[in-house]
């Protein structure tokens, strides 16, 4: 009953226009399935058997990417309900909790973010313990480190958006460190040295913390700045580098293994 129906669907012009190969049952069609699909062709068509064992990769890199996608999707949905303005931000989050059907969005977004950080650390530990950062993969390890930093910044900027006590004070603690940047923070060592003719260049309104907060303390401008960074700038940067990261895995010889 079902099988003739499937056979019919697979014989239609519509199906064959989407999938230009038969059912992946023999070697040729299986290779085609990977090569002719824009998403799957991130992979090579064949891989080392030991390289894809779960006990070798722990699947942590893939998990990180999955969580990135989950964050992107739940994040876009959250943007429908949230206004990055001091007057509305907190109330919007409360409303999200009370009025939105199947209101798991914020939970998925928040716990997914924590899980993503853990997954990245474990991915790095795996890559480290297997020595997979060694030549020819040195550069890709560096790309990965930058992705780690971007992920932590994504998490950090997202922390502020609910605009509750946890949010503003966690960000205050974090950004106070910016004030202490050597040379570039008002409270930092040697910042007095940056002056022209006795006029200091590094002041409370021009230092590293001000660049981050768009204010001298966490306020309205900070919320907008973090929102834009969190929803646009950092995800774009991450997506770009993820593309580079994946591309380089293939160019550097695929999943690592004994030379």
């Amino acid at each position, binding site marked *: 009953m079902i099988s003739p129906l499937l056979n019919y669907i697979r014989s239609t012009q519509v199906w064959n226009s989407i999938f230009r190969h038969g059912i992946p049952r023999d*070697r040729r069609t*299986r290779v085609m399935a990977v090569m002719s699909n824009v998403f*799957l062709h991130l*992979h090579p068509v*064949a*891989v*080392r*058997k*030991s390289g*894809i064992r*779960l*006990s*070798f990769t*722990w*699947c942590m890199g*893939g998990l990180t990417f999955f*969580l990135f996608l989950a964050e992107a999707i739940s994040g876009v949905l959250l943007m429908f309900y949230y206004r990055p303005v001091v007057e509305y931000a*907190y109330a919007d*989050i409360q409303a999200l*909790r009370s009025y939105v059907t199947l209101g*798991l969005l914020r*939970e998925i977004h*928040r*716990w997914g973010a*924590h*899980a993503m950080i853990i997954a990245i*650390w*474990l991915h790095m*530990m795996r890559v*480290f*313990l297997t*020595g*997979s950062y*060694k*030549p020819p993969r*040195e550069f890709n*390890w560096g790309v990965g*480190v930058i992705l780690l930093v971007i992920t932590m910044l994504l*998490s*950090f900027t997202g922390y502020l958006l609910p605009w*509750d*006590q*946890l*949010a*503003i*004070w*966690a960000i*205050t*603690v*974090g950004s106070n*460190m910016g004030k*202490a940047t*050597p040379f570039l*923070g008002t409270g*930092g*060592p*040697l910042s*007095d040295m940056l002056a022209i003719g006795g006029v200091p260049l590094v002041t409370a309104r021009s230092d590293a913390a001000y660049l981050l907060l768009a204010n001298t303390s966490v306020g309205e401008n900070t919320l907008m700045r973090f929102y834009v960074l969190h929803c646009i700038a950092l995800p774009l940067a991450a997506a770009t580098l993820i593309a580079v990261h994946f591309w380089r895995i293939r160019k550097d010889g695929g999943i690592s*293994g004994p*030379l």
Partner: protein
Amino acid sequence: MLSSMITLAAAAGSSNLEWFKELVNRFSVPEISLPLFFLPLFVLLLVAYKVWTRPLFAGTLLVLFCVFYFGSMAIDENYRAIVMKPDNVPITMMLLGVGFCLWWGFRQAAINDERIKAGQPLIEEDKDDKVLVWPDLVYTELICMVIAATVLIVWSVLLPAPLESPANPAGPPNPSKAPWYFLGLQEMLVYFDPWMAGVVLPGMIITGLIAMPYIDTNPKGNGYYTFAQRKFAITVWLFGFLILWVVLIVFGTFLRGPNWNFFGPFQYWDAHLQVPLTNVNLSELFWGDLLDRPLPANPYVREIVGIVFVFLWICVLPYALARTVMRKMYEQLGSVRFYVMAIHLVVMAMLPLKMVLRWTMHLKYFVNLPEINLNL
């Protein structure tokens, strides 16, 4: 339901365990638990990796950990409140994840190292054995994705995302904490000023990580689990990750209470606890205690000992290492690679050094120059 079960268990089994709680509280202070528990544990982890990674042994360790970690929730409400705080739940997952993955990696390293010794092929060795991505890899990925999605959804159903009271710029909570994954850095604030703990050290973690593949010229251990062939690299990296990152995060989140005072896991977070500030600067120790003279007026003369010490530590020590204990490594790496490695190493080592001096001599700063905001 889970919390009511724990409350019940707590009512049943409390009271007699006061001595145990007191012992753990006293033992958990950093000056005791870091050198006498976490450091020996770390050494054992590396020295005895062929023993503890045996499945039965590791399983016993896991059970012991879980009994202590989760069982303690039944006997103490302070500890239960900390562990069950929704934003701390990821830390429990991180600890279990790191522990499990450490075992997974070191188990394979132990097997591989035995095989290398016996001249047998590695677990990962199958050069000609290729499989097609469809179906072998895409199905693994699909299954992982389904499991991950399930876990994430169940986690989200069980645990609502916390939302505290609306932001009040005039009322900081005590303690104010950064997000948990930055708490290793916040914990370093106990020992260093923000310019070090928040800017220089994290900056050097990043530069050190990026530089690592260029510094580590050891051609062995590329693409397979091993410890025996990469002892130095793995020891340094794991010391940084496990002790200076993960353990400090646990201290920062679980054991730092109001005013960033230290509290044992079974201790009530008393906001009025008075801790005497007894820390002294190196300059005070030198001019006052040693020479019995007043502090010189010129700040640079006053801090001369600290300035010389820091100069020696950061600039001369790498050179001395290259000439003595690390001579072989220096010859292998060449000067640029070696000095990049050595400078990162001595800066990283400043943290344990400062910890030890704080615990033994109550040292506050090597160099204390408030005149130019430079305290180290």
